[in-house]
C-alpha cells in the first residue's frame, strides 16, 4: 500500500468535553477529536477510519463498554533510587496533562482505572542506570484498565524500560512527559503471552528543547494496538520514534502514530520496521504527521518498512502528511512492504552460510539500524534473542 487518501476521521461531535476548541475539518486526520468522556465516542463497528484495520471482535468488549474490570495491572518499578514512584488516585491533578483520549477505548480506560502509577525523574537528575517499569497483565481471561505517567522534570536525563508481560485484556493510557530541556528515552516492550489483548494510548508531551527517544518493541499478544500521539508544548522539541515489531501466525499488531507539530522549530523522526511470518500474521502501521500553521521551521520524516517472510502474512502501511505552513525545513515519508529477498539469501548461502543462519543475518540486518540505537545493552540483547527465537519458531 502507498499513501492514504484523506477520509473522515472517526467519531466527531464536539461537546463540552472536547479539547482543542475550534471545529475540525472532516477531512483532517491530524486534528483529532479528543474527550475524557466515553459516551462522546460512538461504539466502533470496524468501518470507521480509526478502526477499519482493527478486528473489533477480538477487543473483548474494550470498545463497547461490555468489558468490566475484573483484575488489575501489577506495576513494579526498579532501578535508580533518585526516582520518585507514587501510586495515586483518580483525583491526582497531574493525570491527563499530557493529552486526552482520542478514541473510545482510551476514554474507557480513562474512566475505568482506579489507581495510577506516577514515576518522576526529579529536576537535574541523571539516572545512572535504566529505570525499569514492569507491568504484569491481570492474567488469562481477566480484564484490567491502567494509567501510567512517566514524568522527566526539567534538565533531567534518564532511560526507562517499560516492560509489559503476562496475559489478560488491557486498556490503558500512558503519559510520557519530557519537560523543558529534559532528555528522556523510553523503551516500551510489548511482550505479552500469545492470548493477551492490549489497547494502549500513549500521550507524549515535550517541553521546550526536550529530547525524547522512543523505542517501541512489539512481539507478543493476540492483539496489540498502540496509539501514540506526540505533542510539543514549546519550541525546540526533538522526538525520535523508533519501532520494531514481529508478527507471527494469528497476531494482529497495530501501531498508529500522530506527530502533532503545533510549535515552531521542532523536529520529529519516525522509523518503524516490522517482520511478519506465518499464516494470518497481520500488522498495521499508520503514520500521521500534522504540521500546523504555527509550526514554522518543522523538520519531520517518517518511514515504515515491512518484511513479509512467508505467504499469507499481511502488512498495511499508511503514511499521511498534512502541512498547513510552507515555512518548514523538511517533511517527507516513505513506506514499503517487501518480500523476503531471495537474492540476499542466495548470496549468503553461496558463501557457505547455512539457510537458517543466512535468514537470521538478513532479518537482524533489517532490524539492526534500530536495535543498534537502543541505549540499554541487556535490552538490546534480549530483543535480538527474541527475534532469533521468533525466526526459529517456524523452523524454516
Amino acid at each position, binding site marked *: 500500500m502507498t499513501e492514504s487518501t484523506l477520509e473522515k476521521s472517526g467519531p466527531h461531535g464536539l461537546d463540552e468535553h472536547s479539547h482543542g476548541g475550534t471545529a475540525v475539518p472532516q477531512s483532517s486526520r491530524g486534528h483529532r477529536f479528543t474527550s475524557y468522556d466515553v459516551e462522546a465516542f460512538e461504539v466502533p463497528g470496524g468501518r470507521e477510519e480509526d478502526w477499519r484495520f482493527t478486528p473489533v471482535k477480538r477487543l473483548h468488549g474494550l470498545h463497547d463498554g461490555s468489558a468490566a474490570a475484573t483484575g488489575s495491572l501489577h506495576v513494579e518499578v526498579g532501578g535508580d533510587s533518585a526516582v520518585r514512584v507514587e501510586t495515586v488516585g483518580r483525583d491526582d491533578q497531574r493525570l491527563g496533562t499530557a493529552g486526552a483520549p482520542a478514541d473510545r477505548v482510551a476514554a474507557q480506560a480513562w474512566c475505568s482505572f482506579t489507581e495510577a502509577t506516577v514515576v518522576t525523574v526529579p529536576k537535574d537528575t541523571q539516572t545512572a542506570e535504566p529505570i525499569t517499569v514492569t507491568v504484569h497483565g491481570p492474567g488469562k481471561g481477566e480484564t484490567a484498565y491502567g494509567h501510567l505517567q512517566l514524568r522527566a522534570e526539567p534538565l533531567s536525563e534518564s532511560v526507562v524500560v517499560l516492560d509489559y508481560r503476562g496475559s489478560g485484556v488491557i486498556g490503558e493510557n500512558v503519559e510520557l512527559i519530557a519537560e523543558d530541556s529534559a532528555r528522556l528515552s523510553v523503551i516500551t516492550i510489548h511482550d505479552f503471552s500469545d492470548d493477551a489483548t492490549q489497547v494502549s494510548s500513549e500521550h507524549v508531551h515535550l517541553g521546550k528543547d526536550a529530547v525524547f527517544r522512543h523505542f517501541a518493541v512489539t512481539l507478543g499478544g493476540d492483539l496489540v494496538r498502540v496509539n501514540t500521539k506526540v505533542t510539543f508544548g514549546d519550541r525546540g522539541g526533538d522526538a525520535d520514534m523508533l519501532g520494531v515489531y514481529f508478527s507471527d501466525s494469528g497476531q494482529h499488531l497495530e501501531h498508529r502514530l500522530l506527530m502533532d507539530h503545533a510549535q515552531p522549530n521542532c523536529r520529529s523522526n519516525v522509523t518503524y520496521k516490522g517482520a511478519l511470518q506465518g499464516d494470518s500474521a497481520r500488522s498495521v502501521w499508520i503514520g500521521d504527521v500534522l504540521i500546523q500553521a504555527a509550526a514554522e521551521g518543522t523538520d519531520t520524516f517518517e518511514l515504515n518498512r515491512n518484511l513479509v517472510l512467508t505467504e499469507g502474512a499481511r502488512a498495511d502501511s499508511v503514511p499521511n502528511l498534512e502541512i498547513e505552513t510552507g515555512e518548514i525545513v523538511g517533511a517527507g515519508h516513505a513506506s514499503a512492504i517487501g518480500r523476503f529477498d*531471495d*537474492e*540476499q539469501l*542466495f*548470496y*549468503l*548461502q*553461496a*558463501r*557457505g*552460510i*547455512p*539457510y537458517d*543462519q*543466512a535468514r537470521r*543475518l*538478513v532479518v*537482524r*540486518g*533489517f*532490524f*539492526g*539500524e534500530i536495535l543498534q540505537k537502543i541505549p540499554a545493552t541487556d535490552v538490546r540483547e534480549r530483543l535480538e534473542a527474541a527475534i532469533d527465537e521468533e525466526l526459529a519458531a517456524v523452523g524454516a
Partner: protein
Amino acid sequence: MATLEIKDLHAEVDTEEESKEILTGVNLTVRSGETHAFMGPNGSGKSTLAYAIAGHPKYRVTAGSVLLDGEEVLEMSVDERARAGLFLAMQYPVEVPGVSMSNFLRSAATATRGEAPQIRHWVKEVKQAMNNLDIDESFSERSVNEGFSGGEKKRHEILQLDLLKPTFAVLDETDSGLDVDALRVVSDGINRYTESGDKGVLLITHYTRILKHVRPDYVHVFVGGQVVESGGPELADELEESGYVRFTEKKEAAVQS
C-alpha cells in the same frame, strides 16, 4: 587432484509466460591447477551456467550433471555446494543491508572451514587480504556491498575468494567495470589464489585484457547455451580480432541441420 565435471547440462528459467531453455547441453571438465577462460556473446548463458553450478533457485536444471570429485553437486543445497569447495564471484554482487562485511566474512569463513577462525589470526588475515586488494579498512564496518561502486564490489568478491580459498572458483565477469589499476589488483588476487597449484578457475569474460594478467590454459567459446569450440589462449586472440560471427553462424548451421 580435484575435478569439476559438467556433463550435458540443461537448464531453464521461468519467464512471465513460459519456461525458457538457456543451457542446452554444457560439457566441460576443469581440473585443479587449470584456468579455463569462458567467452561468449551477451545472453549466451554464461551467467546462467555460473548460477546453475552455484544452485540459484531461479534456474532449473532439467538434465545433466555437475560432479565435484564424482559427487553430484546438483543434489546439494546452495550452502552445501559452497562448503564442498565451490565459489561463485558474481557479475552483480548482491547488497545485504544491515549485515556488516566483517560479520559476513567471519560467518562465511566459519561455515566453509567448519570452525570459527581464531579471532586474533582472523583479524590479521582479513587485514592482510584487504591490503592486498587495496581495500580500505573502513569497509569492514559497512553493510555487505551496500553502496559499493561496481569496482569495489568486484574487489570484495576477490577478497572472499582469497579468504575462503575454495577448490573451484567461477568468476563471472569479475574484470568488467574495473579501471586499469583495479584490473591489475584483482588479477594479482586471482593469481595469488591459484598460486598453490591446486585450484581450478572458470573465468567468464568478454575481454582479453584480463587474460594478459591471468593466463588461461584453455579458452572456450560459449554460444546458445553450450560450448561450441575449445582451444588454447590463441583462441581468445582470434575472438578479440574477429568476434563471435564464425561461431554464431556455425551454431545456427548446426541447429538447422
